[in-house]
């Protein structure tokens, strides 16, 4: 995938086989690294698919990636903490994102965010104590014509009010047994060529 290190990657593909020994837990991510020829420039792609596959980036995973890409752990950690998309803590079994971009803000998204925080007793960016719900914010989801926008478990809901958003969340989390959030959704998109 990456350009700069292409020459290098061809010659080192034999080593690559030897390097991906993370055991079954990191099989998916090993495949992604291999597809990128273990190039250091592919770090963000690798972390992105890890985030999508495992739902979080824990220390063991970061160390595994650092070792395989021959980067210092501090470098990998630095990148993982720089981008909003990466999360080092586990997420809840349901995820609600309130758009607080400009259009949604003008249509009252701040209030929706406050009301959700109060109703579910959780601050934006964190997960409820029972692990059922992670509440977060986004800055514009590119659907400004439908403002204010709330995304619940990947589904975009337009023209929301506090009441409609609360109702939708309550409905989603109601039959969820507690503590089922560990192995949150594992999507297969890691396999796709980006």
């Amino acid at each position, binding site marked *: 995938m990456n350009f*700069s290190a292409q020459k290098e990657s061809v010659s080192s593909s034999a080593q690559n086989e030897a390097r991906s020994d993370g055991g079954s837990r990191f099989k998916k991510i090993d495949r992604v690294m291999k597809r990128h020829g273990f190039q250091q420039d592919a770090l963000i792609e690798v972390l992105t698919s890890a985030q999508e596959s495992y739902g979080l980036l824990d220390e063991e995973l970061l160390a595994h990636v650092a070792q395989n890409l021959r980067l210092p752990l501090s470098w990998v950690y630095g990148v993982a903490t720089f981008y909003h998309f990466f999360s080092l803590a586990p997420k809840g079994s349901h995820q609600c994102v309130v758009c607080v971009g400009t259009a949604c803000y003008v249509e009252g998204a701040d209030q929706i965010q406050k009301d959700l925080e109060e109703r579910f007793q959780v601050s934006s960016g964190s997960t409820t104590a029972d692990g059922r719900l992670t509440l977060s914010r986004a800055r514009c989801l590119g659907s400004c014509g439908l403002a204010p926008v709330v995304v619940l478990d990947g589904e975009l809901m*337009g023209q929301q009010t506090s009441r409609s958003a609360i109702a939708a969340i309550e409905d989603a989390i109601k039959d969820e047994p507690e503590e089922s959030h560990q192995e949150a959704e594992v999507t297969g998109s890691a396999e796709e060529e980006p």
Partner: protein
Amino acid sequence: MNREELESLALGERERASRFSCRFLCCAGTPCLSAGGAAVRKALEKAVEGKNGNSSVEVMGTGCVGPCSRGPLVTVVTPGEEEHTYEKVTPQAVPEIVEAHLEKGVEAASVPSTVSRDSSFFTKQQKIVLETSERIDPERLESYVAQGGYSALARALEDMTPEEVCEELVTSGLRGRGGAGYPTGIKWKQVRGAQGERKFVVANGDEGDPGAYMDRTLMESDPHRILEGMAIAAYAVGAEQGFVYVRGEYPLAAERLGKAIRAAERQGLLGDDILGSSFSFRIRIRMGAGAFVCGEETALMASIMGRRGQPVPRPPYPAQRGLWNAPTLINNVETFGSVPPVISRGGDWYSRWGTDKSKGTKIFALAGKVCQTGLIEVPMGITLREIVFDIGGGIPGGGAFKAAQTGGPSGGCIPASHLDTPMDYESLQELGSIIGSGGLIVMDESSCMVDVARFFMEFCMDESCGKCTPCRSGTVQMVRLLEKIKGGRASAHDLEKLEELCELLKATSLCGLGQTAPNPVLSTIRHFRHEYEAHIEDRHCPAGVCSMPH
């Protein structure tokens, strides 16, 4: 593929389309899809099955039509008849629409209302970049080719030298659509003239302005147009490798661009020996991972190389030293989208639109308190009044226009007294705002301008990369001061301090983020000083947004 084969591909596709007795075009942009467009399309496909033997009817997805809040939109095209665009279509309404158009005659479809193409929402627009958007299936290369796609690339490769391509861009007067408005032709010449064994072309699709979705729509609606623009640029500057950097929140855009790249490579429109010439060019996609500052060109390049997206001081500019230290051309995706028409119809033709110094058209994402929100393309120099009242239909609920915000966190607010300002780079700058990437948010009396300033400053605080002190600490201090004013706890001295900090950030920040972060504050102080004073002196929020002590 060579030029003749390209032409016959276009011909074949046009013929294919003309064979249908009826075509249902479903807008497949994100706003329409999130309003239920996918279900409507499925229902349409099911409803036409069996009707007319099915073969003479087509259901297809298209790029964005424009009036996004009225989706899902379905346009029915029947040869020799007037077109109908239905709005807010539901799967339940589909059978009636299908029956009306295939059997009973048009009047029968009474359920969803139609969007009038004669309304000023459409007639006041001038679509050049979005011209074919609503006619193109973004997932089929043939569909783009049938509308003349890749003929500009063919023209450039066969009939023009790289220098002539650069010259054509200079003639067009096209300026960068990513915010700063740097002349595109000049930038291309600089990259062309730069020394380097290899060069890169990068399309900036990071779209950071938190109230704008022009670039997303363009990538989703017409991905091949961007690829074609990039390929022409690569030929002009002498690059063989390109990247499209797509904002992480835009998976559909990345998916469609990916499909488009693969299709173009299969047809020999990207890759080696493009269109039978000796010119080779490949494009890869890079996804952002959620960081506003990555829209800044030096941060974006760091991110492409897999690093923390932190900006570095310029010069050297990317044109001299960019990706992996090679000369790199970075343009916004809309800038690239404007390139094919410039090449196929000529720079002179393009420069007929716009004003003296701002040529051509600009896409705006019109949102906020305006009746008709959506995506519009207008000639540069159109007045704000025309955009808000003619195209946007005015303020809903009989409210009064208070301000329009352009340029997002780097821009400012334009008050009602300047509604007749022409929308061009210079005029907006004079008012303390910028054209920016194209977000245009309309506000009515229910918005408090101090709160608006706080909103953008908080955004910049969150998104500051932390590398330079003025931006990292200054944004925090400014948010605190604005909170203080909002809470009715501030003195006149605090306002002075706020203005002082604005100047400090402008003068000393490392990159554009910090340098422009004060703009929303400065422009609201300039045009709405009385609101700040009301908060400070009278402990009163005129809009009733901020809670004040009693």
